[in-house]
């Protein structure tokens, strides 16, 4: 078991193993399982993610019962086909996959929580870009999830991953940092670069509040996953280029925890403050729940 990003990097360097492999071996040892069992279970999670991306991107897409979200992954698909996007098509593919996943989530479809349902689109978004850009094979995609999980475990045990305890920085922030670190491994970077990418991505989203309109995992959750995926790719690129965060990953995690603790309850998944508390946000709540 590794308790910090530092331990994870040191283990990787000492044993000359990628982070994904450290995670796989830890899981096998802890639960006394064969490699195949652990691997297949992650492969099924990947299948769930892929199915959600397809579902949200097909025809007109999916819509939530409230009508607050839905159909924008399909809009992005058409936009990519018919126009030249400003951010480039790889980035837009990531954005489309992230939004598709969270639209499926908001419509009570099946998703894989990574680390949470509210942040379930971020990793599939990053994966979509890696598949396209690196032609990452299925094995590499599964490894990506193990590497992301290893970093996520450190955050979950040293800070938090629930919006109710830490705000959206703990959900999309954590997912984005996990995705950045795992993307570096997929691109051939070492564990130290992964740690830098993680630290950069999380630093960028520090302080992000959890302010779901009407208490629903729709506004602004769906689009925040697009930003989570984009931020992960940017952070991974900075780290792969040799850029560093200066503040080490483990200290960024502690900072995230402190910021989370200092957030008022109104900005921790209560549907009271932030965008939920705007006149329009309050209006949606009244229309949907009558109070």
């Amino acid at each position, binding site marked *: 078991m590794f308790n910090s990003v530092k331990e994870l990097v040191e283990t990787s360097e000492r044993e000359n193993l990628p982070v994904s492999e450290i*995670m796989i071996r830890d899981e096998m040892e802890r639960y006394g399982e064969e490699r195949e069992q652990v691997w297949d279970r992650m492969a099924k*999670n990947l299948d769930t993610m892929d199915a959600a991306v397809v579902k949200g991107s097909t025809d007109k897409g999916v819509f939530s019962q409230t009508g607050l979200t839905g159909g924008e992954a399909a809009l992005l698909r058409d936009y990519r086909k018919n126009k030249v996007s400003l951010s480039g098509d790889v980035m837009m593919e990531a954005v489309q996959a992230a939004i598709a996943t969270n639209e499926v989530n908001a419509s009570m479809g099946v998703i894989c929580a990574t680390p949470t*349902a509210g942040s379930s689109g971020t990793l599939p978004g990053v994966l979509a870009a890696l598949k396209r850009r690196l032609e990452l094979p299925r094995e590499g995609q599964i490894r990506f999830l193990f590497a992301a999980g290893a970093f996520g475990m450190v955050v979950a045990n040293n800070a938090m991953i629930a919006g109710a305890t830490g705000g959206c920085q703990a959900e999309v922030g954590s997912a984005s940092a996990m995705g950045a670190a795992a993307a570096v491994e997929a691109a051939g970077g070492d564990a130290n670069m992964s740690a830098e990418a993680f630290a950069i991505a999380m630093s960028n989203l520090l302080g992000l509040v959890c302010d779901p309109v009407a208490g629903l995992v729709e506004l602004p959750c769906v689009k925040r996953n697009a930003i989570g995926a984009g931020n992960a790719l940017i952070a991974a690129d900075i780290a792969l280029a040799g850029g560093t965060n200066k503040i080490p990953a483990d200290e960024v995690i502690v900072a995230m925890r402190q910021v989370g603790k200092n957030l008022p309850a109104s900005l921790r998944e209560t549907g009271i403050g932030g965008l939920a508390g705007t006149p329009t946000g309050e209006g949606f709540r009244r229309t949907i729940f009558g109070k």
Partner: protein
Amino acid sequence: MSQNYKSVFDIIGPVMIGPSSSHTAGAVAIGRAANSIIGGPPDKAVIRYYESFAQTHKGHGTDYAIVSGLLGFEPDDSRVPQAVDIARGQGIDIRFVEEQGDSPIKHPNTAILEMTKDGRQVTVSGCSIGGGTIEIRRIQADGFDIQPGGLLPFLLVEEPGTGQTCEDEVKPIADKLASLGVLGGCSECCDEERGKTMYAFDLDKPLTAQTVKDFASHSSRISYIS
């Protein structure tokens, strides 16, 4: 640093019906734990929400999620969104209460389930700590009031009160768990008047189906909460 999250699948997973891992998948898990403790779907359940659960249970599908768990559904069962109607259709009396005060078990995502089944009353206090992972922090049943370590899995044992000392009655169970290398910790609640004790054994790893079966044949008042 805590060790609340032990498996990579606590982070990458669960596969679930949306929209929220803490308020939906975690709520299914709290309901499933309550179902295991009382031994099946209850006849009646009053579900009391606190803090974030009280504010957002409608939007996050917490109602149908908890009831899904009470019915024994998995978090990705397609019947999850219809669970409240399904339960009421089976004649189960269900009420939801939004409590104003702080959580009695000190977590913003708290649900307290007051259940009745075959005349027996059981209250389970659970909280959802994020990503679908939960803790059961308090169980009140059969005159006992016990506070387990919280994390799943754990084994709840009500010793039969055959006149032997508490230790003698549960020692074989504790020994077996220790020999399997899964025994984490143990909480107990002793009722001296009746000479009976309830134990909660915290487990480091899940038990195999066969081990659970062996324990079940040992005593009827033993539940595996996973």
